[in-house]
């Protein structure tokens, strides 16, 4: 079968994924994509403004279009369909024959027919090229207007505001989000948005756009008023792209849209239409979830034709729920089902709190038994519960108003226990994941929200279902008797986070005290280092002082990294990767004197291997004399801050990357944390320091610094995400202080920031709320905790070599000065390496591990 797919947007691409996953033998697909790049994530398009690249937004897995039987043509526009000959004509003049054709042409932004709408800096918000144009004009503008106060319009307004423009929203209807909101919700939303510094104009009809006086343009309104602005973005709705269908008489609706049946077929049995261009039951669906559903239906239909099977009934499109929940300009907004109470006989309940700026409404059936819809503004925590109640027809409690009223006087809010949901309940509508599938994934071993996302894809598109999916996971684990147990180990029946809290609140400074109050047994190699780390993060006492010494892993106990043969490696700190020639010479001389193997690390410093226990203090004495400090390579602590040379030397650099890297490294050196922490600072967007692969990445901009967090290289690479942009240096440091301390406070044992972030309920937005917007009111406390650690820093090695009691521990035998006879080296490429078992037996090849005569 020759299949031609016109359009490679999100829905068109979903169809390809479904078809390719089915491994059909006799299927040749040609995809025509008029954009210069394959499908990307339009739902998260605004993240382009936060520094996400087109590649990062791409939906095509690497190698996807290299699969046999699949051909993608970029910059290829279909201009005609010859249904009689079953051919598609392209703008390049080519004809493509098809057996089956799928139109996934999407929609175009609707630009009202206003004289002047084609002036320069009058833009739309749809494709990556549009966003590039917005960024471009944004740098040359002071004032920006978005025409349209719907979902996309408000997202677009946020982008303008973030670019530093005075931002206006001009809406024709009497309220914002007129489709999803009622008057009360729209008003509350408007007030919240205006508090953020945006200006909202409702009931404004634009007559013309002409030359402005105070700015590039002037918008003239029907009520006689006007507004001067430098740029205008139209986001006043979308129109289905049905030109091809019109030309070839496939049947379109009066107000546009290609008519389809339940199998998404047009009136021509060989032509399907899916996504925003398709009209089903007189309705257009502008959300991604129904589009994905259509893609799955067409894939199943084509699959059945290819297999010639008549087995199971094929899935049919049956309309879709248009409920949505999102965060607009930091405001939680949700609309469920019949938000306007349009159902005859329906009743409503409303709750409005002007102080907290929360508005909630329920629409219930006339008999009060069923939930029909709702509106939530300012706090949408109940969205998941209400949506499931509506979708699954779960009987409402006696007094449904308590579903939205704040709980008071000990009245517990009637929750929807997730147990009440049927297994068929769809939890993730973007990826069509049911409760049953989530439970199966838990049975198959997914025990964290991160693992559940990987296994089922639930929560990976819009993320709205993550809290509900988490509840289901926990309930299922409990049901299966998998104790939902985050206990650290058998000695402490609580999580690391809880232990941290106990240590802080009860001001506990000793492991013994914590064990006596909250634990049992002697402790073990899990809880001892974890508690040692918590104590160090909180009180920052010397890790080797008597009370803490026995808690430390060998690496922390001897302040060096143990290697496979029981020798250690030594890493002096070279903040920012900067080292003087004299410093390098000193390191080289010490390495030569002690016969150590040297290697440059990925963190831009020198690692010296093969040091025996008893050599460590004298090696460090010499390093300290040469001006070096501990590099903490042995600790679960801040390791390095990698940097490029920055504006000091580089032609492209815009800020002093090395200077900032050194300042950051010196600030956070010695900080103990749940796991190691790696930083980097790049002096420009070329990103030579690879900061987006680090726990904390800082990238210079013309105006200051962009702060990225929770990246990782290693086993499971993860791109860091932009936490805040264009920061001055004091703000940068304040945010990093807060971020690190918040991580230290809440992470699990040995959980890197990347995994912590993947499991963080509320995701990046929540993290921004806590760190940038200080939603928990914790900022000052977190900064003060960091100040204590910074102010009490001491070089552990300086302390260790100057304390005779500590220094005595550095010997292999307590009763002899002999060296460990078990350690042996052989030569390789001019340096030592540990001898293998076989080489150890053949004593002739061994290199004596001795110190060079002074």
């Amino acid at each position, binding site marked *: 079968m020759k299949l031609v797919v016109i359009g490679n947007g999100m829905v068109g691409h979903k169809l390809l994924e479904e078809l390719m996953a089915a491994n059909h033998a006799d299927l040749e697909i040609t995809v025509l994509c008029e954009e210069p790049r394959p499908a990307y994530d339009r739902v998260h398009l605004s993240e382009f403004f936060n520094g996400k690249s087109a590649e990062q937004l791409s939906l095509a897995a690497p190698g996807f279009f290299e699969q046999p039987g699949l051909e993608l043509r970029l910059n290829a526009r279909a201009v005609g369909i010859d249904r009689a000959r079953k051919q598609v004509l392209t703008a390049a003049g080519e004809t493509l024959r098809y057996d089956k054709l799928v139109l996934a042409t999407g929609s175009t932004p609707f630009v009202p027919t206003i004289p002047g709408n084609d002036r320069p800096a009058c833009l739309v918000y749809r494709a990556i090229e549009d966003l590039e144009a917005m960024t471009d004009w944004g740098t040359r503008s002071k004032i920006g207007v978005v025409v349209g106060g719907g979902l996309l319009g408000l997202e677009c307004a946020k982008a303008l505001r973030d670019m530093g423009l005075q931002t206006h929203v001009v809406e024709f209807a009497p309220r914002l989000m007129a489709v999803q909101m009622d008057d009360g919700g729209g008003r509350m939303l408007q007030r919240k948005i205006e508090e953020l510094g945006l200006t909202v104009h409702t009931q404004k009809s634009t007559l013309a756009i002409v030359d402005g006086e105070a700015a590039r343009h002037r918008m003239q309104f029907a009520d006689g008023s006007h507004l001067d602005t430098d740029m205008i973005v139209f986001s006043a709705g979308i129109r289905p792209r049905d030109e091809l269908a019109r030309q070839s008489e496939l049947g379109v609706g009066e107000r546009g849209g290609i008519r389809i049946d339940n199998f998404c077929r047009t009136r021509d049995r060989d032509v399907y239409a899916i996504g925003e261009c398709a009209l089903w039951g007189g309705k257009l669906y502008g959300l991604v979830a129904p589009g994905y559903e259509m893609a799955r239906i067409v894939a199943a239909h084509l699959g059945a034709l290819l297999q010639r099977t008549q087995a199971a009934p094929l899935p049919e499109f049956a309309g879709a729920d248009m409920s949505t929940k999102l965060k607009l300009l930091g405001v939680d907004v949700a609309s469920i089902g019949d938000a306007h109470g349009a159902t005859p006989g329906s009743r409503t309940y409303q709750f409005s709190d002007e102080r907290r700026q929360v508005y909630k409404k329920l629409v219930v059936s006339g008999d009060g038994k069923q939930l029909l819809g709702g509106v939530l503004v300012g706090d949408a925590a109940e969205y998941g519960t209400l949506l499931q109640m509506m979708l699954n027809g779960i009987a409402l409690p006696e007094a449904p108003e308590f579903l939205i009223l704040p709980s008071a006087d000990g009245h517990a809010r009637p929750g929807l226990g997730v147990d009440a949901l049927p297994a068929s309940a769809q939890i993730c509508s973007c990826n069509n994941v049911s409760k049953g599938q989530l439970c199966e994934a838990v049975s198959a071993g997914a025990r964290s929200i991160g693992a559940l996302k990987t296994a089922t894809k639930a929560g990976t598109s819009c993320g709205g279902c993550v809290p509900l999916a988490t509840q289901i996971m926990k309930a299922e684990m409990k049901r299966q008797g998998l104790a939902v147990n985050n206990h650290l180990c058998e000695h402490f029946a609580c999580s690391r986070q809880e232990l941290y809290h106990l240590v802080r609140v009860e001001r506990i400074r000793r492991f013994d005290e914590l064990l006596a109050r909250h634990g049992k047994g002697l*402790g073990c190699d899990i809880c*001892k280092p974890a508690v040692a780390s918590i104590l160090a993060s909180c009180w920052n006492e010397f890790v080797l002082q008597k009370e803490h010494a*026995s808690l430390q892993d*060998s690496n922390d*106990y*001897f302040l060096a990294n*143990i290697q496979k043969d029981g020798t250690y490696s030594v890493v002096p700190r070279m903040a920012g990767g900067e080292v003087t020639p004299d410093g390098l010479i000193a390191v080289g001389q010490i390495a030569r004197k002690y016969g150590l193997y040297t290697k440059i690390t990925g963190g831009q410093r020198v690692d010296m291997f093969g040091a025996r226990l008893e050599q460590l203090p004298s090696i460090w004495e010499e390093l300290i004399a040469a001006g070096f400090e501990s590099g903490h390579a042995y600790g679960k602590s801040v390791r390095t801050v990698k940097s490029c040379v920055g504006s000091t030397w580089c032609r492209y650099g815009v800020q002093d990357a090395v200077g900032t890297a050194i300042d950051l490294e010196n600030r956070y050196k010695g900080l103990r944390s749940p796991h190691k922490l790696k930083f980097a600072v790049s002096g420009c967007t070329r990103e030579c320091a690879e900061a987006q692969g680090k726990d904390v990445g800082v990238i210079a901009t013309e105006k200051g610094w962009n702060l990225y967090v929770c990246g990782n290289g290693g086993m499971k690479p993860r791109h860091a995400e932009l936490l805040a942009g264009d920061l001055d240096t004091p703000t940068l440091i304040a945010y990093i202080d807060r971020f690190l301390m918040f991580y230290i406070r809440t992470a699990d044992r040995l959980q890197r920031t990347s995994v912590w972030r993947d499991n963080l309920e509320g995701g990046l937005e929540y993290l921004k709320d806590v760190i940038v917007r200080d939603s928990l009111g914790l900022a000052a406390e977190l900064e003060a905790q960091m100040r204590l650690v910074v102010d009490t820093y001491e070089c552990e090695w300086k302390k260790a070599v100057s304390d005779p009691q500590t220094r005595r521990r550095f010997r*292999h035998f*307590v009763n002899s000065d002999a060296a460990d006879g*078990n350690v042996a080296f052989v030569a390789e490429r001019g340096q030592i390496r540990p001898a293998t078992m076989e080489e150890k037996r053949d004593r002739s090849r061994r290199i004596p591990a001795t110190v060079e005569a002074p």
Partner: protein
Amino acid sequence: MHDSAETRSWTAVCALDDIVPDTGVCALVDDAQVAVFRVGERDLYAIANVDPGAGAAVLARGLVGSLGERIVVASPITKQHFDLRTGECLEAPQHSVRVWQASLRDDGQVLVGTVPR
């Protein structure tokens, strides 16, 4: 000191104070590397220092703790646990190690039996 069989079979390796509570040290006893542990104030244990899984002489540097009723040390390289009373390796019994007697003399010296138990 009398030259009795009993005294000959013990070697004094260090003072009790030389071992930080809940840690170990390595002692050379008749050419063998013995890991000697002090648990709490006065309890002493001695097992072979070489971790057979790693082939490195490191057990004295492991973390001491309890698993259920057992008192164990975790190898700093393989993280396997060794029972300090029996030398048994909990995760891989084929890697179990020898055990020596250890005791505390009245003058505060730590004694290790010269012959493995």
